[in-house]
């Protein structure tokens, strides 16, 4: 019986020679030279294009009403050369002295912050239970959550309005918050459960061996590891609620209306109160940006790196 294996030395001879960095063709190097800057230029163009309306809104909010009704915001650039530009903070002063607008801005905060906090807290706790605790009917609960993802908001408007009416919450900020929380939770649970489930089982077991109770493991291990997911969820939920018009319009009465509803109220049949509208719109857009940039450092990649082999 002759061997099919052969001497070990022969095996080594077939091994490929250690890889030497291959010289790339001239074409590929040229493409790389040009493509880098080209991509950068393209990105700048897109960014400028996207920021144009924001900038326009900012300029409009700084112009007096008379100027806004006479000409477009872009004329400020030419006006600079003809006569002193008429830029003023008066619109913002007016916005802040307008009780409806000021109140509605505060209402939006009162709606958006609890809606976000509640969704994140309840959603992450539920997601942890669904991902890592075994209890009867767990899979059915998860199926229910997924099913709720596809229920459109509009379907619930009438029945929820009746429900809130019956409980005396109709028109109040609490009612609006409840609605936002109810409709924010399915997605929150779904997103976080999938993220939590991706955390290696060994980590949780190690924490259990180390003496951790479920809530402790959740708080000191799962939440810090899942911070990017939780932060993203919080930002999206906040933006969604902040920018919402429909729910506020339906469920909030005048005293608890958010800024989006109040801004809509500034639209007149013939033209609009551009001064308050522009400054109000800019403020309502600016807050989410601040929120976004203050949370964005939590969008860190590779938080799990290094836990294992």
């Amino acid at each position, binding site marked *: *019986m002759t061997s099919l294996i052969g001497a070990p030395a022969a095996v080594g001879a077939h091994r490929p020679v250690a890889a030497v960095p291959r010289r790339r063709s001239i074409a590929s190097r040229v493409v790389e030279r040009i493509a880098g800057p080209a991509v950068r230029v393209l990105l700048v163009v897109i960014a400028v294009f996207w920021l144009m309306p924001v900038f326009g809104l900012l300029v409009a909010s700084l112009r007096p009403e008379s100027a806004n009704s006479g000409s477009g915001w872009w004329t400020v650039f030419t006006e600079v050369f003809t006569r002193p530009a008429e830029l003023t903070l008066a619109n913002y002063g007016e916005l802040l002295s307008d009780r409806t607008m000021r109140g509605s801005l505060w209402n939006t905060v009162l709606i958006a912050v609890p809606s976000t906090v509640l969704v994140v807290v309840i959603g992450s706790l539920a997601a942890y239970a669904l991902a890592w605790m075994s209890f009867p009917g767990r899979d059915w609960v998860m199926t229910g959550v997924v099913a709720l993802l596809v229920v459109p908001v509009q379907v619930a408007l009438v029945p929820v309005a009746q429900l809130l009416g019956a409980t005396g919450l109709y028109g109040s900020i609490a009612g609006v918050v409840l609605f936002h929380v109810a409709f924010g939770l399915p997605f929150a649970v779904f997103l976080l459960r999938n993220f939590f489930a991706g955390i290696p089982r*060994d980590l949780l*077991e*190690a*924490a259990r061996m180390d*003496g951790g109770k479920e809530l402790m493991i959740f708080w000191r291990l799962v939440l810090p590891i899942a911070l990017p997911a939780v932060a993203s969820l919080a930002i999206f939920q906040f933006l969604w609620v902040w920018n919402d018009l429909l729910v506020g319009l339906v469920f909030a009465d005048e005293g608890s209306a958010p800024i989006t509803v109040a801004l809509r109220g500034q639209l007149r049949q013939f033209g609009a109160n551009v001064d308050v509208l522009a400054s109000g719109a800019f403020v309502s857009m600016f807050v989410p940006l601040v929120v976004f940039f203050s949370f964005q450092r939590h969008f860190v990649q590779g938080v799990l*790196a290094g836990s294992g082999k």
Partner: protein
Amino acid sequence: MAGIEIDRVGKVYADGTRAVSDLTIDVMDGEFLVLVGPSGCGKTTALRMVAGLEEISEGEVRIGGEVVNEVPARDRDVAMVFQSYALYPHLTVFDNIAFGLSLRKVPKATIERSVREVAEVLELTEQLHRKPRNLSGGQRQRVAMGRAIVRQPRAFLMDEPLSNLDAKLRVQMRAQIARIQRDLGVTTVYVTHDQTEAMTLGDRVAVMRGGVLQQIASPQELYDRPKNMLVAGFIGSPAMNMVTAELALDGDDASVTFGGHRLTVPASVLHKRPALRGYAGRALAVGIRPEDMEDAEIAGPVAAGGDTLSSVADLVEAMGADVMVHFPVDAEAVRTEDRESLERDSGGAGRTGPGTVLVGRFSPRTRIFEGQPTTVRVDVENLHFFDLGTGSSIWH
């Protein structure tokens, strides 16, 4: 510190799969017990049941005399080292080691002192402020060890803690684990598939296979007196050679023959294994350890004959300290499940056709080369015999 009694423990999963059956092991206080076996043999499941990470379907586990079946993992006061290390990625080395203590509300100053002490022992002091992702494999392994040690638990449970390290580091860490365990004297259950680790670390080694405990004994006893073919084939590297042979008995003169080869069975062996007489004229399995074979030219002139095999060297592997010589003999191989699955995995290369390839561990002074006819001297005093039907070793 405490002993661990695993008493007729079984594990059946919800889908009906049985992972462990009727496992009884009594781990003494301070003992280093190694659970060894091929993958899927239930050793890890057994360990996880002791840890409390897996529900116990049957039987009882007692730690320090107390039944812990219903005690959650966190209250069993045992520490586990995971194969994947399972370090907390968002915490520094210091906080990783301190995690268990801080969960137990140990005072800050005590934690600080304990962690630094452990870090000192494991040479991690320089790394205390680092995150796991900035550590090398060996350092991560030591952090995992440190996390277990710092708690001063009643027992250590280790699940293949070295399998992710490269070979050299593994040997070093193996020695370190042995030293630490000896110094601390903590009861340890160590799971591995590597029989070298099992032999070098264990006070006792439990060989498992298919969820069933095959034998539990000291490493030397396992090697010298394997209870059955499974243990014989698993312990020792390269594995024990096994061929089907026929035993001929004439008074006190006994011999085994297989495919034209004949080996004398000395009277002393017959005396040690009286049950062998019952197999006269019958087929049985003969086991020869590679280290019980030697190039006849080196072993010196054959005295009485009947203790050599003639063949042609088929493959020669020079290892430096010794030379592995593969040579075919015209004998029927012993078909065991282990061998068959190994052959399936390796594609059965070189094992076509009838006959068996034996492996001998020769002295490096051998002049043997591939394709050369060779005479192999067998130390017949150390032959092993097994029943072909049951696979059990033939002793009494």
